[in-house]
């Protein structure tokens, strides 16, 4: 039996792209949450964590409303890129982003919070700009747990099902990611395909987790996203 590997490649591509976006966005947000006390920080923090606890279908529904063809954002996207966002593989990236970014942000925040504040204070008294403090002091001191958090976010974005199927659908060869393909295979009674894909995704996830743990020598508690040394 020839196995169609497209869903695996699509999932990897979607995960890579969404992790990259989550990393850039998440680093900034995590730093804000960890180091810049501002009014309403707790609300923002709660909002950032919300996707971890809401059912994926709820998140998918929100995204459909927010990014659908009739929404201003959806129309803007269509105007810029010449095609709608929903039911494309790019929509799967958005779905994976929402699925994985909360974990990345909260873990990165925890990693940044473990950096002794006196290093950052010292850097400031020496005249370093906030930009320099972040790139030359905070980030280098926290990069291991941050990289581990990024690896976890990558693994998590590989596995999204609910949001993806709501927003990107299940179009074989176009938007069918690995987890959707497994669902599809089971529904279609194709047990061997489902088994193979399940084993493959499990192996990939296991390798990533192992790497993340080695990298950070940090134990992660998945419920809180807190890194402990």
């Amino acid at each position, binding site marked *: 039996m020839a196995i169609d590997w497209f869903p695996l490649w699509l999932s990897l591509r979607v995960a890579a792209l969404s992790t990259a976006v989550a990393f850039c966005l998440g680093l900034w947000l995590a730093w804000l949450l960890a180091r810049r006390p501002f009014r309403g920080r707790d609300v923002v923090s709660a909002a950032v964590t919300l996707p971890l606890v809401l059912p994926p279908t709820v998140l998918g529904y929100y995204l459909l409303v927010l990014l659908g063809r009739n929404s201003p954002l959806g129309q803007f996207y269509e105007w810029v890129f010449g095609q709608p966002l929903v039911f494309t593989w790019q929509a799967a990236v958005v779905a994976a982003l929402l699925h994985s970014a909360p974990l990345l942000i909260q873990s990165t925040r925890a990693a940044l919070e473990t950096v*002794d504040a*006196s*290093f950052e*204070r*010292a*850097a*400031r*008294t*020496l*005249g*370093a*700009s906030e930009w*320099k403090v972040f790139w*030359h*002091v905070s980030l*280098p*001191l926290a990069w291991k747990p941050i990289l581990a958090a990024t690896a976890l976010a990558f693994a998590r974005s590989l596995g999204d099902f609910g949001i993806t199927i709501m927003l990107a659908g299940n179009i074989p060869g176009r938007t069918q990611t690995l987890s959707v393909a497994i669902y599809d295979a089971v529904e279609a009674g194709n047990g061997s395909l489902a088994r193979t894909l399940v084993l493959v995704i499990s192996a990939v996830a296991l390798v990533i987790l192992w790497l993340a743990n080695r990298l950070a020598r940090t134990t992660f508690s998945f419920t809180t996203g807190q890194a402990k040394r």
Partner: protein
Amino acid sequence: MIDARIRKRFPPSKDSSAFELDIHLKTSSPVTVLFGPSGSGKTLTLDAVAGFITPDEGRIVAGDTLLFDVAARISLSPQQRRCGYVFQNYALFPHMTLRENLAFAADRLPRAERRGRIAEMLHQFHLGEVSGRKPHELSGGQKQRASIARALLADPRVLLLDEPARGLDPALRSELYALLNQVLADFRLPVILVTHDLEECFELGDHMVVIDNGHIVQSGQPAEILDAPANPAVARLLDRHNMVQAEIVALDPSRQLSRLRCYPGSDDGFEILAPYLPGHLLGARVTFAIRTDRLLASPSDQAPQGSVRLELAQVSLRPQTARLIFANGLTAEMPLRAFEPHRHNKNWSVRFPPEAIRLMRP
């Protein structure tokens, strides 16, 4: 010149009760030592000057620069304040070598000067040979010097040192004091230093500020403060005084003398001669302090006139002195050499030199 009026309330939190910092620190001495117990607000004062905490009220001026003023809504960022801050843990960046740590601070200098200045500092602070090492490969003294050198490279207006001698052994301490004195001579910038070690105040400070529970309780030269603590709280902090409750039993303005009946501990009391106490009435209750090393103890059989006989309860030996703690709680400190021949003697006579008696404000 430093002039800092700082007022900040800290609401109670889960690991500390409510605290109010209310400090007016004004000094033009080369070295100002903030002395006080842990948790008294010394480090918070440094943090407010450096810009890490924002006072609710106040104004901070360093030299001719206004760093902070609530009324004028001015609050310079820590970067703009240019305060050299030597942290308790030194805060050398652990992922950089010593040279990179210094280079981090030298960014403000013109590019052409940087290398030369860094080399100069490495040489001056005897760090040339270890400049390629990471902080965790340095000894305590080297870290200490590196952190001072780094602070100075950024050309600060004022140098703030948070308990610099904490955790250093005695030899390294003397080295640090010598280094700081050299820094003072070479760089001519005001230094504010936090300590809870009285000896450090004497070693370094021209101006000592005693802080207790968020407030300044006394300031002046260390010797002055030790000689005449302003109130019982200061005397307690210095831990070098006997505090004695007494009743005025005689006042003699013509001879400028008074007689006090003292009640240390639960004792029946004894009478001593004291200077005349103007503005006090006969029979009034007063508290006075007398330094432990000003109480003159001698073995009983050679008791001078006008002294009190006391029973020795306990002795604690110091490198140079012996502390004699008597049964009624009074403590006298005498040179070890003078004590040695009488170490088994139980009965002592103790004299209170009138000129050493310091009446406390209630």
